[in-house]
């Protein structure tokens, strides 16, 4: 990834690059002017534009492997169209770059954007957000911009606008969602400020703002500060511990499409994209930095999934999983090896696919039933077969059931950890800790998705569920497509997907493990078919249907053991229950902690406001003296 980029003199190929950013942004601004009454029209227009952008990103993906588009291009454009050099020096900042990594991310932004827009056409007629489509298009344009920009200042402008669109895509309809929106805005805004500080330090150290040119060793204190400051930005965007606390609140309050677009997919793609830039290009990580990343990674995996186990609201449950999965990616990048980076990127792509898919299924269930609590639901498998099948596939993918895609990427992370164990240093000698906690997190993920799938789709159906119907085709097609991509990425992981898709972005490497995904998948298919044939040959047709047997007792309407009760036993351990109580009181929420600190500080400061004039005069004089001392 660090090899010098080939400059492309021929601007015709690069022109696509700018249109990819400008087109969605312009469409977004245009749609702002159209009244919300023409919702469907706006949606169709947005879909058309995003399809064009998708086409452009495919063109870019298949173009020559490495190219940079320089500031000259923007100036040239101004000269041709406006006949004046209006940009002046600012043109130097408008540098775009494209390499294996950004191509990959751009491609997946397009795929997910188009699918979620298609889903929105029907979904957002019932769940209204003011100016949904304009902000959606602005989000897409800024996401492209952030990934393609080479200049750090240009990057943070796009990155910052994404924080605003996140705020705009949640309806402030009640107190809860307004509070969630505010919390998101404050956390994201604060992290952007810290990032800006990190960029300033980088500029001070190297005199450059170009991502291509900077490569700093994390040995000096200044470099470590810059590294950590940029890390805060990436972690808040992606939602890693301890900056994750906005994600569950946001997903609970926001419509499913907004959650599927930002916290589930684009924020992950961008946050991890920036993490990749930080760890592989901007900085050269020392052992200590790797240790920090690995610790944060495993803490994120375990704490978030433990919280997810206890949730009753399924959108909030998915929000905690959106946090937990980031831990795996952080661990992958913390390893610092090529296979670790590849595993992190592959897991990022997989996560974007199944997590946005899960939010879409959650949205479908919420739209059809009007419920978002797991215990109010049950037995929807017959009423909503496509949604059920899709969510089962997503759940198995995220839990790492072989041969789905989540397994493939986790398996790569694990072998990265085992290879890492051969190295020197503290972080390497603790490899068993990283491996053990990552695998435990995977088992807990499986547990909480049994609660999700079992509680919503399986189990005994409510009487009311006979009236529930499957969602319209524009909603189930995106889910089905995502599910098929999940299967494809799992089945052909080792043969096609990783070598063709991931390796160009991460660099080439060899698997140290053994897993032939496509042949095993073939055997899965053959075994299931053989099994069904055995069933048929054994005369399964002469079956009868009976109500549940509960030891001879008559089953009542209230007889049930809902899946939300499954993990209560774990709460009874003294140590665990104390931690849960603290977590419920938000003792680990950085937003809450800093809010309390600020309030405490302002309380102290307000005591200086006594209303006594001589006091104020004294303050003013003291201030003057201090200023004079600094000036001299």
């Amino acid at each position: 990834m660090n090899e010098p980029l080939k400059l492309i003199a021929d601007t015709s190929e690069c022109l696509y690059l700018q249109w990819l950013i400008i087109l969605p942004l312009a469409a977004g601004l245009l749609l702002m002017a159209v009244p919300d009454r023409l919702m469907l029209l706006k949606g169709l227009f947005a879909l058309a534009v995003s399809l064009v952008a998708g086409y452009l990103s495919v063109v870019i993906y298949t173009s020559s492997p490495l190219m940079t588009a320089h500031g000259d291009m923007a100036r040239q454009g101004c000269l041709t169209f406006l006949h004046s050099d209006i940009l002046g020096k600012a043109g130097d900042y408008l540098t775009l770059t494209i390499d294996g990594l950004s191509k990959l991310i751009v491609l997946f932004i397009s795929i997910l954007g188009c699918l979620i827009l298609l889903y929105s056409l029907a979904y957002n007629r019932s769940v209204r957000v003011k100016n949904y489509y304009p902000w959606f298009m602005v989000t897409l344009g800024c996401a492209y911009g952030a990934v393609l920009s080479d200049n750090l200042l240009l990057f943070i402008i796009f990155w910052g606008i994404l924080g605003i669109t996140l705020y705009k895509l949640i309806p402030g309809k009640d107190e809860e969602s307004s509070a969630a929106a505010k919390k998101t805005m404050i956390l994201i805004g604060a992290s952007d400020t810290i990032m800006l500080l990190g960029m300033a330090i980088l500029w001070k150290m190297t005199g450059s703002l170009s991502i291509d040119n900077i490569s700093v060793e994390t040995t000096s204190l200044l470099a470590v500060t810059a590294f950590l400051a940029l890390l805060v930005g990436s972690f808040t965007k992606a939602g890693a511990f301890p900056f994750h606390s906005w994600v569950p609140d946001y997903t609970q309050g926001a419509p499913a499409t907004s959650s599927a677009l930002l916290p589930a997919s684009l924020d992950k793609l961008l946050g991890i994209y920036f993490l990749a830039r930080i760890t592989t290009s901007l900085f050269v990580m020392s052992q200590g930095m790797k240790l920090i990343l690995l610790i944060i990674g495993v803490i994120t995996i375990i704490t978030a999934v433990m919280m997810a186990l206890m949730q009753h609201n399924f959108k909030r449950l998915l929000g905690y999983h959106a946090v937990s999965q980031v831990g795996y990616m952080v661990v992958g990048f913390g390893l610092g090896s090529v296979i670790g980076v590849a595993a992190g990127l592959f897991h990022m792509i997989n996560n974007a696919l199944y997590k946005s898919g899960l939010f879409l299924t959650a949205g479908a269930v919420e739209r059809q039933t009007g419920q978002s609590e797991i215990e109010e639901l049950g037995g929807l498998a017959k009423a909503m077969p496509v949604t059920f099948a899709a969510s089962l596939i997503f759940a198995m993918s995220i839990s790492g059931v072989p041969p789905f895609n989540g397994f493939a990427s986790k398996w790569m992370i694990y072998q990265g950890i085992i290879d890492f164990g051969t190295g020197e240093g503290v972080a390497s000698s603790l490899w068993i800790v990283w491996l053990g906690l990552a695998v435990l997190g995977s088992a807990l993920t499986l547990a909480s998705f049994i609660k999700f799938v079992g509680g919503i789709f399986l189990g005994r159906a409510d009487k009311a569920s006979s009236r529930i119907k499957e969602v319209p085709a524009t909603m189930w097609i995106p889910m089905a497509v995502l599910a098929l991509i999940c299967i494809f990425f799992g089945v052909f992981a080792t043969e096609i997907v990783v070598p063709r898709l991931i390796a160009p972005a991460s660099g080439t490497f060899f698997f140290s493990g053994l897993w032939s995904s496509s042949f095993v998948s073939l055997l899965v298919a053959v075994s299931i078919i053989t099994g069904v044939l055995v069933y048929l040959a054994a005369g399964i047709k002469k079956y009868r249907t009976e109500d549940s047997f509960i030891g001879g007792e008559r089953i009542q309407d209230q007889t049930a053991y809902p899946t939300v009760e499954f993990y209560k036993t774990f709460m009874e351990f003294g140590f665990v229950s104390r931690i849960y109580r603290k977590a419920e009181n938000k003792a680990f929420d950085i937003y809450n902690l800093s809010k309390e600190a600020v309030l405490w500080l302002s309380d102290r400061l307000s005591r200086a406001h006594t209303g006594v004039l001589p006091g104020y005069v004294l303050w003013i004089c003291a201030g003057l003296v201090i200023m004079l001392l600094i000036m001299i």
Partner: protein
Amino acid sequence: MAVNIFYFFIFPGLLFMAVAGGLLSWFDRKITARVQFRQGPPLLQPFYDFFKLLLVKETILPRHGSPVVFMLAPLLAVFGATMAGLFILLPLFNISTGFRGDLLVIFYLLTLPSFSYILGSVASGNPLAAVGSSREIKLVISYELTFLLIIAAVIMKSGQHFDLDTVIAMQRSGTPFIGSVSGVLLFIAAVFCIQAKLGLVPFDMPEAETELSSGIYIEYSGPPYAMIKLAKYIMLFILPALVVALLMNGMGQGAGILWAVLKILGVVLLLTLIRNTSPRVKIRQASGFFFIWMNLIVVIAIVLIAFGL
């Protein structure tokens, strides 16, 4: 590819494992009977059981939930057991083919049967099955970390190699891993993990005949239940085989084959004796047992390995 399909379905795959597992199941039942001063079943009893369920008994489907998932789950269980077994037995029998899986793959495939039982039982909509599956998943969470740490310790012992061929080759060129203090500790933890994975007493609370009337399997009957039996036979064979491969030197040629059979029988005998001499524990006790005591044993073993013991 054709030869790999042969490996999967005939030898050392499905057919071989089913026969070996059935015979081991007879062994287990015979020993149990002798412990209880009974005569015990004839040699082919497990196969009679299987074919009666498959061919004679009728199928009863649950009225609620999802019958499709309910029926497909046992097939997934059989697949998971067979696939894991193939990846264990190919290196154990020293059959070299391009088609292999490493220890992590085996670890994940071995969870598939438990996962599919849970899925199938939740799909039946039966409240007792729900209690059973809640216990099963809690049991899985409890022993999964211990089981992984055992595998990680073996990986550490064999110098960060995690394919089974190398693990066996390392032991054959040196001493078997069980011939050290850490190896003995790992073996103890591994036996208890297998006990839980097989759902044998004291860890049979997911099925708990006396209180839950078979819990997770309560709604199963006829051919799908035959498939569950099949998966259980296979697991009874491949899990002891995995222990033999990981810690006890694997299998040699000629007389070594007999020796390996004896080792597997010895492990199964140990499992049977444990299940006949202990009562069923509560799920909380089982979780505490694995989270605290078994993990402690394995961590001690790992520390010993780090010091080369």
